[in-house]
């Protein structure tokens, strides 16, 4: 391990903490914790810091991005739990992007999954030190000292010492060995799994004081708006600025070349023409007034409707077989009593986080400072070093609050743009995307088509399952000409199909990309969740069985998990969420005229979800009345935040199902703002009922697993209500909303 040269005061400075107080530096990785008080030199690289001050203030430096999932509150409460801290003293400071904080990438629903145990251990370690400090001060055995709510109590005399008053003493205590660190019993939890009284950022949210990327301000900063080629990867042929420079507030116009990322990493930037102004509005106006002639390039023929037909055509024929396969599907189809087949499609989608992409950069004296809402600050840093030649240590990424992200803000093209501009104009500059820019120049969720074929025997048992899928891969954004789906994408519900079927075959047909393709909340689980849950429903209907009983049967017997994985798939847990959803939704109850129930289940990010939806269909129009969702994510920290995420996932899934569609003509995205890329609003919002399964399993994903079952649960409910089977989304294409 790298020897650390920095001293305590250096850390205090780098972290921007107040001086004085007791500082813990810890190296927290998924399975172990190394800690020291940083009073003397240390022999490890800390990636998490906790500071206790004499007034009792406890600061936790959090190195994950806040994008609405409550991560700052969750991480702080995990540490506060085992430290026996009083929540009113806890504050959180956001870490800058720096390798000393370990992996800071916030995606894949993994923060709590990997960090809960180490963080709890960290808290327990600090608590043990404080108890030992009290023991030393009172000169009594440590077994008589018990920390409770920011005080250590002498169990013989009942005397108490405030945590803050133990700071000096604690600096003299040696780090306790692992066997002396005892985690709290689950029964004594005050924060983990409980409703947290006050989210760390609540008051800021309520008073407009939270600092999002877009709120970053520097003296004399400039604002920039960039015109990018309407067709992906087109370039500027010529441009005329005469109507732009007329605009009050516009200062200059700068051309930016496209930066192409090296194979396999980074995001680069699209390039275009940037208007620099002394306020955002003038920059926007200046951009609108540019007259640009574009060289559209190869993607100008991309018509997403035609491409959809092409994909549908391809998946009707035998395609590339991907492992694992089981048995012999052709035989199963030959010997079947009934064979059914169906084709499903979904269009491109875009994240449209409420806060548009933006970044403020200031390049000066060979250094580069960035203030931006980013999910993955370390990659941003590496990318800036790559394109602009700064030494890594001369780049600072100040991670601002994220006004939503859903995967968009882990692609750092908007930061690269700001750095390029700041370097060119020698001033701090904030690049602000308009909503139109966001909708028209994103990294899109892939348009897709799936063909499923299944066979049933005389008893209605499923004997064969063929699943053919085609969509442009995320890999195409990193390696041009990647025309097949990557293994990690197929692993999101396709190749790890949970059903116990004797003969299974998965095939992947070719799909070229003509837009930048990227990941969007839940990624290709959205596709598999829709296709598989729709088709299982069709099989159930043909076999004449109840949709839930049919699924329980198809999942097969409980088995001991066999997968080599830190969180092996356990079919019993999937069946359990389904049964819980049955209960929660009162499945089978009598429904009002025109109402229907639909169900879907999905396993993703190691979590298990079942969703039941109640819709009403009146004169062909669909209204979602109720959504019942059950989540098994193992142990969870902030109960209420998890429920909030599931409610949000239900709405996100609804938006996809009802309206979600990005289409192109002549290579240009046809949608531009919320009037034509619509999302669910209050008036359409259903009642949402969430149940969390309580168990002692390791924590798994929360932010994403709620989305994948929603679409099929809705379309299955529509079938139940009206007999109409919807196989292509969104519903707005069918005049159903």
């Amino acid at each position, binding site marked *: 391990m790298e020897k650390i040269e920095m001293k305590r005061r250096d850390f205090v400075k780098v972290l921007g903490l107040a001086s004085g107080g007791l500082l813990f530096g810890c190296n927290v990785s998924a399975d172990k914790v190394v800690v020291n008080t940083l009073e003397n030199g240390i022999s490890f690289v800390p990636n998490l810091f906790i500071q206790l001050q004499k007034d009792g203030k406890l600061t936790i430096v959090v190195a994950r991005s806040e994008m609405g999932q409550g991560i700052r509150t969750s991480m702080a409460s995990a540490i506060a739990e085992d430290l026996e801290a009083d929540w009113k003293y806890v504050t959180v400071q956001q870490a800058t992007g720096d390798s000393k904080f370990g992996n800071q990438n916030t995606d894949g629903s993994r923060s709590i999954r990997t960090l809960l145990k180490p963080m709890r251990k960290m808290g327990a370690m600090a608590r043990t030190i404080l108890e030992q400090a009290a023991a030393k001060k009172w000169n009594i055995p440590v077994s008589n000292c018990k920390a409770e709510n920011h005080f250590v109590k002498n169990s013989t005399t009942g005397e108490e010492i405030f945590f803050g008053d133990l700071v000096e003493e604690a600096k003299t205590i040696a780090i306790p060995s692992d066997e002396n660190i005892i985690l709290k019993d689950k029964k004594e939890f005050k924060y983990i799994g409980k409703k947290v009284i006050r989210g760390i*950022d609540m008051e800021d949210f309520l008073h*407009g004081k939270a600092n999002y990327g877009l709120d970053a301000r520097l003296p004399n900063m400039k604002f920039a708006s960039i015109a990018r080629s309407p067709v992906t990867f087109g370039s500027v042929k010529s441009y005329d600025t005469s109507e732009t420079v007329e605009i009050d507030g516009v200062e200059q116009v700068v051309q930016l070349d496209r930066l192409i990322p090296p194979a396999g990493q980074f995001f680069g930037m699209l390039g275009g023409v940037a208007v620099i102004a002394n306020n*955002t509005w003038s920059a926007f106006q200046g951009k609108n007034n540019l007259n640009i002639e574009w060289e559209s390039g190869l993607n100008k023929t991309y018509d997403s409707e035609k491409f959809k037909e092409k994909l549908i055509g391809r998946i009707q024929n035998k395609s590339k077989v991907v492992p694992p396969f089981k048995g012999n599907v052709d035989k199963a189809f030959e010997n079947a009593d009934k064979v059914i087949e169906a084709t499903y499609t979904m269009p491109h989608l875009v994240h449209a986080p409420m806060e548009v992409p933006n970044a403020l950069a200031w390049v000066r004296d060979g250094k580069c400072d960035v203030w931006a809402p980013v999910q993955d600050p370390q990659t941003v840093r590496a990318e800036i070093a790559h394109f602009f030649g700064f030494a890594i240590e001369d780049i600072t990424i100040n991670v601002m609050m994220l006004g939503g992200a859903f995967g968009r803000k882990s692609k750092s093209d908007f930061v690269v743009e700001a750095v390029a501009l700041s370097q060119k104009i020698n001033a701090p500059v904030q690049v602000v995307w308009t909503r139109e820019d966001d909708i028209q120049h994103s990294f899109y969720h892939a348009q897709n088509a799936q063909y499923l074929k299944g066979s049933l025997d005389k008893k209605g048992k499923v004997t064969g399952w063929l699943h053919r899928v085609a969509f442009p891969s995320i890999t195409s954004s990193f390696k041009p000409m990647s025309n097949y789906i990557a293994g990690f994408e197929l692993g999101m519900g396709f190749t790890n199909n949970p059903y116990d079927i004797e003969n299974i075959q998965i095939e992947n047909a070719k799909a070229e990309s003509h837009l930048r393709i990227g990941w969007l909340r839940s990624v290709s689980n959205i596709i598999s969740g829709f296709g598989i849950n729709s088709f299982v429903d069709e099989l159930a209907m043909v076999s004449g069985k109840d949709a839930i009983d049919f699924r329980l049967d198809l999942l097969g017997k409980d088995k001991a998990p066999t997968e080599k994985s830190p969180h092996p798939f356990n079919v019993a847990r999937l069946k359990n969420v389904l049964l819980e959803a049955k209960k929660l939704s009162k499945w089978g109850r009598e429904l009002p005229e025109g109402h229907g129930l639909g169900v879907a289940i999905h396993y993703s990010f190691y979590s298990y979800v079942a969703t039941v939806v109640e819709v009403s269909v009146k004169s062909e129009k669909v209204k979602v009345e109720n959504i019942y969702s059950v989540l098994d994510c193992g142990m969870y920290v902030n109960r209420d935040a998890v429920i909030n995420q599931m409610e949000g996932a239900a709405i996100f899934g609804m938006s996809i199902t009802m309206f979600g569609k990005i289409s192109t003509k002549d290579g240009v995205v046809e949608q531009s703002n919320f009037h034509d890329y619509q999302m669910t609003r209050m008036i359409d919002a259903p009642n949402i009922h969430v149940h969390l399964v309580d168990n002692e399993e390791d924590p798994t994903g929360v932010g994403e697993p709620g989305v994948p079952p929603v679409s099929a649960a809705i379309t299955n409910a529509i079938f139940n209500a009206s007999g109409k089977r919807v196989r292509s989304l969104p519903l707005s294409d069918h005049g159903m909303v």
Partner: protein
Amino acid sequence: MQTLTINGQDYQVDAPESMPLLWAIRDLIGLTGTKFGCGVAQCGACSIMIDGAVVRSCSTMVSQAIGKNITTIEGTSASLEALRQAWRNNSVPQCGYCQSGQLISAAELLDTNNNPTDEDIDNAMSGNICRCGTYVRIKKAIKEAVELKKQV
């Protein structure tokens, strides 16, 4: 130079002629609680009140606010305080970005309606998008705020 009165305080601004209030408030005056979401009166993130009525500041000219009282999320009122308390009680925000606009729209509703029905709430709030999907909580919190306000 124009004078804008925001939350009871006067600010001198020199705004370009066509500039909407949103940008005068955010970029010229520096009050960043009012948010940009769409720029075309579709999302409600930029909601403010002018003399007690909600407007989308991205689509309202500076001239329309001269000599009037502007309330932003940095301000206060009996309705806003009741709503804040209800928002806390129900842990409404996720990313928080839309919440300035949500609170302002809800404040107008509470100012003008002592007993809003579900339908009143839907109508008052459907101009405000929450991409994180906190609608269920917003609705519950508004109902709670109505009761809280009656108690004071």
